[in-house]
């Protein structure tokens, strides 16, 4: 059973095909990058996987379960068990680092003790344990990036989706975070779907790449 599967997915915006007849499979534990030029539909694919968009045609399967098909979302984002790191990180500015991570665990109905333990472990892995009471705005760009990754991983998702998360960082920080992400993957073994337009990030992070061109996945 694949972790993620798209079957002949089609998506149009204003009469223009953004994704057409795209099919691929991602196996559990794989590190897959989705690569393509601007406007090739990378983010649209990720948003369909997350559950924010429904494909006009075709089927989306997560963990073998059909979650969306032919214009309808059958399983909402909160029931897909996915983590996501957004391009602008989307850290909640009114919540501390701890509260940012706690949100998903509260939604799962975990007890305070379990939540504390789980958050402590994840923050230690991203080396931010001393910043749990800090608000995101007071952190550096790299630290914010690691909070976003920690928040996406804390609920132990089936797969981690990342939408060009390093695009706004300088080269040194990019290298550091790429290494850190690969370390985390080696430790935790999650499935990673990483959207990027950078060939360098594609080579570094993915062990497989899906190239999007002319709204189609032309090469796997």
């Amino acid at each position: 059973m694949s972790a993620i599967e798209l079957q002949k997915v089609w998506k149009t915006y204003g009469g223009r095909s953004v994704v057409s007849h795209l099919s691929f499979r991602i196996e559990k534990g794989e590190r897959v990058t989705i690569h393509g030029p601007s406007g090739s539909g990378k983010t649209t694919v990720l948003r369909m996987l997350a559950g924010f968009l429904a494909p006009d045609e075709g089927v989306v399967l997560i963990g073998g379960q059909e979650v969306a098909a032919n214009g309808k979302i059958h399983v909402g984002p909160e029931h897909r068990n996915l983590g996501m790191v957004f391009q602008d990180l989307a850290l909640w500015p009114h919540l501390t680092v701890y509260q940012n991570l706690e949100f998903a665990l509260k939604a799962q109905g975990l007890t305070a003790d379990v939540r504390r333990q789980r958050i402590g472990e994840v923050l230690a892995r991203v080396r931010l344990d001393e910043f749990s009471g800090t608000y995101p705005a007071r952190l550096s760009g790299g630290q914010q990036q690691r909070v976003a990754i920690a928040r996406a991983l804390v609920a132990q998702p089936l797969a981690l989706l990342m939408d060009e998360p390093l695009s706004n960082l300088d080269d040194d920080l990019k290298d550091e975070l790429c290494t850190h992400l690969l370390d985390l993957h080696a430790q935790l073994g999650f499935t990673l779907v990483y959207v990027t337009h950078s060939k360098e990030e594609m080579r570094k992070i993915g062990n497989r790449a899906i190239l999007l061109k002319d709204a189609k996945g032309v090469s796997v």
Partner: protein
Amino acid sequence: MAAVVVLAIVGLLPLCLMVGSSLWVDGSLSSRNYVEVLGNARTWILFRNSLVLATLTTAVAGLAGVSLGILVARTDLPFSSSIAVVFSLPLLFPPYILAVGWFEILGRGGILARWIPIGETTSRWLFGLPGAVLVLGSAFLPIVLLLTITYLRGMNPSLEQAARLSAGWPAVLRRITIPLITPGILLSLVLVFLLSMGEFGAPAFLRIDVFPVASFTQSSAFYNFGAATAAAMPLIAVVLAGLLMIQRILHGRAYSFRWGGQSTLERIPLGRKKPIVLLAVVVLAAILVGVPLAGVLWRGSSVAALSDALQRAGESAIRSFVYAGLSATFLSVLGFFVAYLVYRRSVAGWWSVDALALFLFTLPGTVLGIGLIALWNHPSTNWIYATPAMLMIGFVAQYAALSSRIVLAGFSQMSPSLEEAAEVAGAGWFRRVFGILTPLVRPALLASWAVTFVFCLRDVALPLLLASPGRDTLTARTMTLMANGSSELIAALCLLAVLLALLPLGAIGIAWRLWRTPA
């Protein structure tokens, strides 16, 4: 700099003089006015009444406005734009029109009393705190509604999407969306509270004993400006406290959630509850807006009543239109320069100009009017005081904050590099301002004109205090005729005021659409 001087002359100077003259009794410095007014138990009863009315109004407008704002801006409720327009209608005309409308429904001789013999009870209810809260709550609800919608639409969608990955909509709204727009909600609540505290027309019609009504009576009936100023001091104190609160709300937050992206926010599906929610919203719109307007229409739409209204107040209506139009034009120009000053932070103390404008906006019209009378009512300045310019000065002082804030919103959408590029290309200040900036903020200038036009048109307290004899406005004329005019005449005058606001705005709306639509 000229904008700062204008604002200081029309707004700050009268207030300073007002305070000074209240301390000057019989040729010497004295606190007698304050001792008399503040030592009087009635002052504190009035203050308590005003506080209770403003608090309850804020609670009603806040609860309904925030709920409706979320429904309109974030859910898949059908006809959401039309619903927002209907609920915002009361902002276009003075609140006393809603009071008159309810009077035609719930008064002793109202529609309800014709069918059910409960006119006495409903009339007592209307001419009391519940009636005043209903009227002011529906009059100021649009402020909360529109600010909630504005803040919700300005939110970065990925903040909610990040939460949606692990929780359903109720938890996302409760823990992410609403806390993020709390500054906007609090701002709207403080504004509603201050405007309710200073509202004159509706409480005067409903005979509610509140501060602005008492302050107006002191100045216009007894010509006791010192006592009127002293009586206004608690209101000024409340306004200052409210403004400090706004300052804390807007600048005390260490985070920002707004963005300039294009992606649309996901609409919350109402599912099977959609028809019930729609029905509830329509019923609420009917109660808060439809019923009182229907009351006015029912009583005042006869040919006899309308022709009587036109005969007795037709000239006042024309004057209202002209004064509001001229004031709105001047306000838009002033607002442009105040906004430019705040945007560029081009003079030291730029924030004090913005704060002064906001202070004047939230200051009750009765207080501002008394201040302007104290400043301009002298033989040497009679050439201004005895003319319509006096009223327009009052409008400019009261509504400068509206125009400057709207134009500032236009400026903030623009990159500062646009002006810098013109500067590098060798354009002088005049060419930069009129060749580059003015065309770019034209929509904001038009919005500023329309909003300030409506606010000048609907004002009651300033025309009552400042309009020279024989040159009153429609609102002032209506309030005067309320004392002895027939119900039909008053309702027809209200109808005239509604039409006066709706017709030009409708024309502007159509013109705007035609202009924006490509050939």
